[in-house]
């Protein structure tokens, strides 16, 4: 039986003006378990708290009911008071007689009556309270960043700079991601390589960062602070520790006709390759599908020319297990496939290209060494048409495009148009747009400069069809402002294709039990207040895996994710919220209903041996809640038909006792 003390606060006249606090204190005296009841002007004041502490000592109280303002206001205060008095902080309940009583009712008798009932409900609950202690779990002080694009790089650097070891897992042979493929960046037009490659070098040289390039995450187990991750290092048939990146093998390789992914397939690379000059790690990789040595056992030239003896045709996929305290997802984006957009003739003409291909065409390290030449005949195009929103904002064509706005296209199209006009003033550039969306620092100014200073023609309307005819592309489009149809004979058409999350994101989300939206973007724990955390504790989001983003936004989110990770890794132990779910194994059926509604993946199942009533044993599947992951929402408690799952601090019997007290 509890020994409960009731403390009714006047809150000056805030409560006492509408509630007869003395009557409340008196009425609650006779409630079961109550051994002490009093009132005071300001319970939250130091004097008020001292009064509570003294009362606990004098009366050997085991539970406290404070009739005062909202628990959202002072619950934490009174829990600390309880702790000072030597009580478990969770033996305190607040009856909210200010915000939800004295402030919303006018007449004293009514307010008093309600305050008494609210007090009774709190007493009934405290009678069933049990001391709660937050669970503790150790934190492995190492972070994993999945994805080595600008998002992953920035997050890794920020975490590593704070002194924590970080591993980056990147599926490609080099880190750098999409940004490495870009030419210039809006709206300042600085060269992407100039700002990215130093960061890549920083990563490579940082003593706290390890890079697992050409690698994938194979398995994730565990929970916040204690993830066990298996990383699959794909065989690259080159010993990374020996390769110096000299490039001799690349020059000598006879299998030169393989589409170069880095240049969007617009030129070729050999079977052994280094994606680009500033690759990190600068190590060659053999494309097993193209290498005749690996396919047929003939050739071996690279091995012969390699002075470092780094080539190893027998290399196998390698699995590495590592423990991490936090995981950052930075899997980024890809451009969607243009295969289904027949109207734009992407598959019919080499001169219809996506914007990312255009980036490579204008990049000094690209297939044309930075000269803007048509892919079909290498001639300089004089009429270029840019089409925006290709596959974005597409509601009814889920198999073709995406319903969302890809966000970055307006700005990079303005950039492409402006740069083209700047470098080749003899080129006529037309941009077809539905809306031009330029919210961002110096963004709209940038777009207006493209129009006003560089003479880019912006036409409000959409391209309906493109037909390749001889050397030209017949572009038919609408001009909605002038209410006419336009027919342009273009030399080059650039499609601002929608972007989508990388295909690796979905299986990764399953491994991490992180949730995704229907478009396969990772969902954040709270769209406004927790934008870089996934609902799964210990999993953080960085960059375009969470939604379309430009570079500045990505970098700031990367930093934010890093700061969240640092905040986590700083701790030696994680203190959980003690108000979490727990399963009574004797009653659990193992039916998985709770697991299915848990937004955090906190519930797992164990096969456990039970002694049956007839003294035999039986192995049963029972639910087990991970206290470090559970956030205490209680969804599982209702999904559980047998009532095996209950929530500490808001237990079934406690809430029913409150109901009973209110309805008495």
């Amino acid at each position: 039986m509890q020994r409960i003390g009731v403390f009714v606060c006047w809150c000056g006249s805030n409560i006492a003006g509408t509630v007869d606090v003395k009557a409340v204190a008196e009425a609650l005296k006779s409630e079961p378990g109550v051994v002490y009841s009093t009132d005071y002007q300001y319970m939250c004041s130091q004097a008020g708290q001292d009064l509570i502490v003294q009362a606990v000592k004098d009366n050997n109280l085991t539970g406290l009911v404070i009739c005062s303002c909202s628990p959202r206001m002072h619950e934490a205060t009174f829990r600390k008071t309880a702790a000072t008095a030597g009580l478990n902080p969770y033996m305190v309940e607040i009856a909210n007689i200010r915000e939800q009583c004295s402030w919303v009712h006018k007449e004293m008798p009514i307010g008093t009556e309600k305050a008494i009932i609210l007090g009774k409900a709190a007493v009934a609950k405290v009678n069933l309270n049990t001391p709660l202690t937050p669970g503790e779990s150790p934190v492995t002080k190492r972070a994993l960043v999945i994805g080595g694009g600008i998002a992953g790089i920035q997050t890794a650097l920020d975490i590593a700079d704070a002194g924590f070891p970080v591993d980056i897992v990147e599926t490609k042979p080099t880190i750098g991601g999409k940004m490495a493929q870009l030419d210039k960046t809006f709206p300042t037009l600085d060269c992407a390589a100039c700002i990215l490659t130093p960061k890549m070098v920083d990563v490579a040289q940082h003593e706290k960062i390890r890079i697992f390039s050409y690698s994938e995450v194979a398995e994730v187990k565990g929970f916040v602070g204690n993830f066990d991750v298996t990383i699959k290092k794909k065989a690259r048939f080159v010993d990374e520790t020996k390769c110096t990146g000299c490039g001799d093998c690349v020059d000598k390789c006879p299998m030169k006709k393989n589409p170069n992914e880095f240049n969007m397939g617009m030129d070729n690379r050999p079977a052994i390759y280094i994606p680009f000059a500033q690759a990190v790690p600068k190590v060659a990789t053999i494309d097993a599908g193209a290498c005749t040595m690996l396919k047929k056992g003939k050739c071996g030239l690279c091995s012969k020319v390699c002075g470092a003896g780094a080539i190893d045709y027998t290399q196998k996929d390698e699995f590495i297990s590592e423990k991490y305290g936090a995981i950052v997802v930075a899997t980024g984006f890809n451009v969607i496939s243009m295969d289904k957009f027949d109207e734009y003739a992407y598959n019919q003409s080499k001169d219809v290209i996506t914007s990312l291909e255009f980036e490579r065409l204008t990049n000094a390290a690209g297939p044309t060494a930075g000269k803007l030449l048509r892919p079909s005949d290498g001639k300089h195009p004089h009429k270029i048409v840019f089409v925006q929103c290709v596959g974005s904002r597409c509601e009814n064509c889920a198999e073709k495009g995406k319903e969302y706005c890809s966000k970055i296209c307006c700005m990079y199209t303005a950039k492409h148009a402006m740069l083209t006009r700047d470098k080749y003033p003899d080129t006529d550039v037309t941009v077809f747009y539905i809306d031009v969306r330029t919210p961002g620092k110096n963004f709209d100014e940038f777009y207006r400069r493209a129009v006003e200073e560089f003479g880019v023609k912006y036409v409000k309307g959409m391209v309906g069809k493109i037909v390749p005819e001889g050397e030209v592309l017949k572009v038919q489009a609408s001009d909605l402002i002038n209410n006419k149809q336009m027919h342009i004979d273009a030399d080059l058409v650039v499609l601002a294709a929608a972007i989508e999350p990388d295909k690796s994101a979905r299986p990764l989300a399953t491994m991490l039990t992180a949730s995704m939206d229907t478009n396969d973007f990772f969902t954040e724990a709270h769209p406004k207040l927790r934008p870089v955390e996934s609902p799964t504790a210990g999993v953080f989001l960085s960059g375009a895996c969470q939604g379309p983003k430009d570079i500045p936004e990505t970098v700031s989110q990367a930093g934010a994710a890093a700061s969240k990770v640092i905040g986590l890794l700083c701790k030696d132990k994680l203190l959980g919220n003690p108000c979490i779910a727990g399963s009574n194994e004797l009653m659990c059926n193992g039916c998985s209903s709770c697991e299915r509604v848990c937004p955090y993946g906190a519930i797992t199942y164990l096969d456990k041996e039970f002694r049956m009533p007839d003294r035999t044993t039986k192995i049963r599947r029972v639910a087990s809640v991970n206290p470090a992951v559970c956030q205490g929402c209680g969804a599982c408690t209702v999904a559980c038909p047998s009532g095996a799952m209950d929530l500490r601090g808001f237990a079934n019997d406690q809430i029913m006792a409150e109901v009973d007290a209110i309805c008495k």
Partner: protein
Amino acid sequence: MQVKEYKPLIVAFCCNWCSYAGADLAGNNRLNYPADVKIIRVPCSCRVNPMFILRAFQRGADGVILCGCHPGDCHYTSGNYYTRRRMAMLFSMLDYLGIERERTRVEWVSAAEGAKFAATMNEFVEAVSALGENKRLEDLRCKR
């Protein structure tokens, strides 16, 4: 014998993050609503077990209202979506058994919607008062 004015008994379950805060805001703004409404704080609307609602009716509640964050705003991301289904099904069943449907309600009230909280409670109390005492889902033993 003195004729007592009929006062309905209303139990309101409010989620800690939105609706309970919304109710606090109604208080901060001194927005009146009937004292017949008694609030029980739960972490999330998805914590509310149908058994709690039936228990309230058993013990003499005339109406039960459940308030949670707006869909999409749940502090726990998905709790109120489950609530929405659970309560839709439960209320439909109560209706099917002939319990007046006005006695049960789910309302989404954000932490900023103090005015909505007060208005909802005024409206709900009025609707329940119009029905009178809950006779169909009560336990007579509790009325002795």
